[in-house]
């Protein structure tokens, strides 16, 4: 213990002697880890956001598929489904996409029939009549209006429709509501000129949670042109979606890691004559091979541990304090209305562990042989100058 502490002391002083070289190594190493860490943190936080808040999403959504495409569903299906045992209620949903050529963005128009009570995350109120609407923060920013102003959209008949804005969703809900325009159901039908007998899809409430899968099968059996989507599947999709994404990012980043290892290898193998002389002196005045190996081990540990912790800290600050500015363009793609989100810090220890494993193990493995090569320098070497 005492011996290791002394050897650590020597290691630190020898690292400090080559401080520019080692600092640059730590910087590159920490940067690699911060990049990987940011990806993991961001995807995990998004995953938690999705799987956490979508637990109250509709238990079962039934779409109609016609000629392989999603089609409007006849409201008559409601009766067929509600007759199935175990179904609590079936509600037709009316919603659709709207492309605004002015701001060149896609909006999601949602029709609600009636909702009593206030929404905590809504500033103002939901629309009471056909001339009113509530909008997401992203829409508000794109169009520039505030509560009380008018939102002008072009309906399918090429005529201007004016909605009075009665509510804007709070920024906290951006990840869910950024591009929403909430209208009354009748107003939405009117806007899209949608038949009264049709709806976008049906939402099915179920008495017993365990029955959802069976019910989905029954609906599919009774109405073969439908496609039921369960809430579990939605959550599962989000779960795997972000796992896959972070896995892929890691796979790409392995390339970066490998090149870093080559750098480390190069650094460790390219022992300068000066360093070899130094190790020779140590051996000559009575250091054992194991002591020199311990120096090298500590060198690797100090560098990788410091870089790892700094990298993780940087990643945390990058993602949770600044909202991942370096990664957002990647996610954003061609979205015009990209939500400005403030992520709730959510970290999976497992991922941090994996990250540590993926970065520290290859580094240490790279340095074993070079450090042994240094450690077995003959003490006699120094006498031959």
């Amino acid at each position, binding site marked *: 213990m005492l011996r290791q502490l*002394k050897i*650590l*002391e020597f290691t630190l*002083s020898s690292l400090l002697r080559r401080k520019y070289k080692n600092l640059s190594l730590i910087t590159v190493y920490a940067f690699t880890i911060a990049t990987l860490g940011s990806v993991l943190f961001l995807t995990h936080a*998004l995953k938690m956001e*999705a799987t*956490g*808040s*979508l637990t*109250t*999403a*509709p238990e079962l*959504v039934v*779409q109609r*598929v016609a000629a*392989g*495409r*999603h089609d409007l569903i006849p409201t008559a299906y409601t009766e067929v489904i509600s007759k199935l045992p175990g179904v609590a209620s079936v509600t037709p*949903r009316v919603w659709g996409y709207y492309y605004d050529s002015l701001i060149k963005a*896609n909006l*999601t128009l949602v029709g609600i029939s009636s*909702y009593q009570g206030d*929404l*905590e*995350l809504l500033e103002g109120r939901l629309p009471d009549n056909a001339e009113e609407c509530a909008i997401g923060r*992203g829409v508000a920013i794109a169009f520039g209006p505030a509560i009380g102003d008018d939102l002008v959209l072009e309906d399918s008949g090429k005529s201007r429709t004016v909605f009075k804005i009665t509510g804007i969703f709070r920024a*906290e*809900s951006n*990840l*869910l*509501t*950024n*591009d929403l325009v909430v209208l009354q159901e009748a107003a939405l039908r009117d806007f899209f000129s949608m038949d009264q007998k049709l709806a976008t899809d049906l939402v099915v409430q179920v008495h017993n949670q*365990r029955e959802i899968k069976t019910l989905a099968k029954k609906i599919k059996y009774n109405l073969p042109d439908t496609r039921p*989507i369960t809430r579990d599947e*939605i959550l*599962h*999709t*989000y779960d795997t979606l972000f796992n896959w*994404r972070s896995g*892929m990012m890691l796979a790409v980043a392995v390339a970066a890691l490998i090149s870093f290892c080559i750098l480390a290898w190069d650094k460790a193998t390219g022992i300068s004559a000066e360093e070899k002389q130094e190790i020779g002196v140590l051996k000559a005045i009575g250091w054992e091979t194991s002591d020199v190996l311990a120096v090298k081990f500590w060198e690797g540990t100090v560098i990788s*541990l*410091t870089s790892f*912790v700094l990298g*993780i*800290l940087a990643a*945390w600050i990058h993602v*949770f304090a600044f909202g991942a500015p370096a990664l957002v363009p*990647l*996610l954003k*793609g*061609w*979205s*015009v*209305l*990209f939500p400005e989100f403030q992520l*709730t810090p*959510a*970290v999976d*220890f497992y991922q941090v562990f994996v990250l540590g494993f993926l970065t520290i193990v290859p580094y240490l493995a790279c340095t074993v042989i070079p450090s042994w090569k240094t450690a077995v320098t003959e003490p006699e070497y120094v006498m031959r100058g």
Partner: protein
Amino acid sequence: MTRGTIYLIFIAVLLFMTTGLLITSSTGIIDLTEKRQLVQALGITDLSLSSEARYTRHPSQADLFSAFQDFPAAFEHFPTGSIIAPNPVGFFSRVKIQHHSGKQN
């Protein structure tokens, strides 16, 4: 004070900070009740993370022909598609029953 002690203190402080941050963010129970209320009221099924096309806006509601359901990956036009998996595993896929396992739901 020796360099060793200084370094050990330095790394201990860093580790302490990091684990502190990680622990507060891994166990800190996030209050999602407001968001859940919103989701319930509007019947939201997806995040509004990417709105460039309808199959990226609602990955779980997308058409069967669109990128998410086609596998192996169809040619994709939108950058989001390149980082979101086609046909997420377990999404409407076949269910195989393992013989020696117990119940089937």
